[in-house]
């Protein structure tokens, strides 16, 4: 028996037999050949065979994992056809009289190194593709048949150095119960694949392939990041218990998916997701989010080499809106500047970027850019319940200025006879203390507020939370922050057809849920994975109790005292986090 600790890549607990999947990597030695023609035939046959294999894998991947996964193998096939690759190998064979296997290894390594050294995740991914393809061609030249994972007789945990898209695509998904690997991180292919297959994975274990044998009984605990090989009976029993508990917990959360977020005494709130791109919608839907409380549009701009066109933005907004026929989608206009820059928009370095030209302020300076986005949102607004949200608002003057530009865009669209939702909702982020204090004034011009706690905390407490010397001061439970939140919700409660939400990290914090509910928050927007847990808490509490807890907290001395009090109160109400 032994236990090893690695990186948690995908949650859950699995108990099954190990299958050590070792790549057969033969030593390829340099040797000169005379019969270049024979080597060329070997190479061409291997390319042909690799094409056939990739096509089969591509079809399997599309059927089992979707188009996106299938596209990886299209990219692999492109490497097989690439003139620099093919001609590079041919030159090594014909001119340097190298054997086909050594020539392929040489050329693959050369490209791998170039791409791997580039300081850019896009190119690192290409490096992995090239290595994967090179290995395939090499194995085909040498007639090596890789262990077949496509037909397994029993449930197994795959033990490997690392897994490539070629490995995972051909796997018998019904039998593969977990992964444990020597290397890898939360963002490596193995991790992404484990999460999409919803199986536990612990990576970065060092030498797990050398210490586990095929057939060993083992546990992969993706909750604590441990693997236990050949567990004792007691350990086995304890893991079985933990596994059961986790499954029950998941079932409980799953059962809540289609239920309303409503308290025991009938106060209904809205749980929605924060997203960065249209792909994130799937996670929100899966976790029972009824809409989007924060669509961070800056990713559209940051993931592009050029300014995204109106058409491109329109298509992205439309696809998100169409995913929620009944729920709100709050689209935040470009929040760039400060620490976030765009390659195609030159910006001067600033003394105080967080107090400088960012978000709405930058949009006022770059009105052309701002109008493209507003036009795209307006045009998409007919496909759902679009809400436009302006970031970094400090006073009503800025709201009026932004709305005037929005009105210009509406007039343009009228002239062009393009449809848009004339009653589109307009709101602002409350993240600057002045906006929270003057919420009643600002509310005259808008339909909703969304409190951005991350920045509100930084600005109110004058603390940079990335600065380790002072980050201890960053505390969303600080009474000053809670009082500001209360001031904002109190304003919105007095108005009809008006709501206040929150899209900062605090909204997804289980410890803050009761407090925020009691402070009168209506909409909670968070990362999709947090939604089920927050819903469980909301459905287990009475609004009256939450209000009492919040009222008491507002009169306490410190964030620490408030946090202790909330924890204590939740325990009394039998609310387990």
């Amino acid at each position: 028996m032994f236990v090893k600790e690695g990186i948690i890549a995908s949650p859950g607990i699995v108990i099954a037999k190990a299958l050590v999947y070792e790549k057969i990597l033969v030593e390829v030695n340099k040797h000169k050949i005379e019969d270049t023609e024979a080597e060329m035939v070997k190479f061409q046959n291997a390319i042909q065979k690799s094409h056939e294999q990739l096509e089969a894998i591509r079809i399997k991947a599309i059927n089992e994992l979707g188009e996106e996964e299938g596209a990886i193998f299209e990219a692999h096939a492109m490497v097989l056809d690439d003139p620099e690759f093919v001609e590079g190998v041919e030159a090594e064979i014909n001119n340097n009289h190298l054997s086909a296997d050594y020539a392929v290894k040489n050329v693959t390594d050369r490209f791998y190194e170039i791409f791997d050294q580039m300081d850019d995740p896009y190119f690192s991914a290409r490096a992995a593709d090239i290595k994967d393809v090179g290995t395939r061609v090499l194995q085909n030249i040498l007639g090596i048949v890789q262990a077949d994972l496509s037909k397994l007789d029993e449930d197994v945990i795959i033990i490997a150095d690392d897994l490539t898209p070629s490995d995972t695509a051909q796997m018998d998904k019904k039998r593969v119960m977990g992964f444990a690997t020597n290397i890898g991180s939360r963002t490596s292919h193995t991790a992404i694949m484990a999460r999409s297959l919803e199986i536990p994975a612990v990576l970065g274990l060092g030498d797990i392939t050398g210490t586990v044998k095929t057939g060993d009984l083992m546990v992969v605990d993706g909750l604590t990041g441990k693997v236990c090989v050949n567990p004792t009976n007691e350990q086995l029993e304890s893991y079985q218990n933990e596994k059961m508990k986790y499954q029950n917990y998941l079932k409980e959360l799953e059962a809540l998916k289609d239920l309303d977020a409503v308290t025991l005494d009938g106060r209904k709130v809205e749980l929605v997701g924060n997203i960065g791109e249209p792909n994130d919608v799937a996670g929100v839907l899966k976790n029972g989010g009824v809409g989007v409380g924060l669509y961070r549009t800056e990713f559209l701009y940051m993931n592009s080499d050029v300014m995204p066109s109106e058409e491109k933005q329109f298509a992205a907004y439309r696809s998100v809106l169409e995913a929620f026929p009944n729920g709100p989608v709050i689209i935040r206009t470009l929040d760039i500047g400060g620490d976030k820059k765009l390659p195609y928009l030159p910006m001067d370095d600033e003394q105080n970027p967080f107090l400088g030209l960012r978000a709405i302020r930058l949009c006022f300076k770059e009105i052309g850019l701002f109008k493209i986005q507003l036009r795209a949102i307006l045009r998409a607004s007919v496909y759902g319940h679009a809400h436009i949200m302006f970031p970094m608002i400090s006073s009503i003057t800025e709201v009026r200025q932004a709305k005037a530009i929005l009105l210009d865009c509406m007039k343009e669209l009228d002239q062009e006879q393009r449809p848009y939702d004339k009653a589109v909702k307009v709101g602002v982020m409350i993240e600057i203390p002045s906006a929270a204090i003057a919420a009643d004034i600002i509310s005259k011009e808008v339909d909703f507020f969304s409190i951005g706690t991350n920045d509100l905390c930084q600005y109110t407490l004058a603390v940079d939370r990335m600065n380790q010397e002072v980050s201890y001061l960053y505390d969303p439970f600080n009474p000053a922050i809670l009082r500001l939140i209360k001031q904002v919700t109190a304003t919105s409660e007095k108005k009809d057809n008006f709501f206040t939400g929150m899209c900062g990290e605090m909204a997804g914090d289980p410890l803050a849920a009761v407090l925020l509910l009691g402070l009168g928050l209506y909409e909670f927007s968070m990362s999709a994975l947090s939604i089920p847990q927050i819903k469980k808490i909301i459905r287990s509490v009475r609004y009256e109790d939450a209000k009492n807890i919040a009222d008491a907290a507002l009169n306490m001395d410190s964030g620490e005292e408030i946090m202790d009090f909330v924890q204590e109160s939740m325990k009394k109400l039998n609310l387990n986090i």
Partner: protein
Amino acid sequence: MVKKEVTVLNATGLHARPASMFVQTAGKFKSKIFVIKEGNSINAKSIMGIMAGGISQGTTIEVQAEGDDEAEAVDALVQLINDKFGE
């Protein structure tokens, strides 16, 4: 053979999207097409070659083509670069 010098103007150079646009355009012509950067010759129809070439903003390259449609090929590729890939 036709050849022309051109300086890459777009912000990201021949990065992911511009590189694939460049290679796709080159692929439409029958001629053999090469990009010469600092004396190194890169096959313009190879996405791996072009991306690995590290052609960034401000780099001056020479586009060479040889074949039936050599003039059109060089013109099309140079224009693509001068248009900053439609940015």
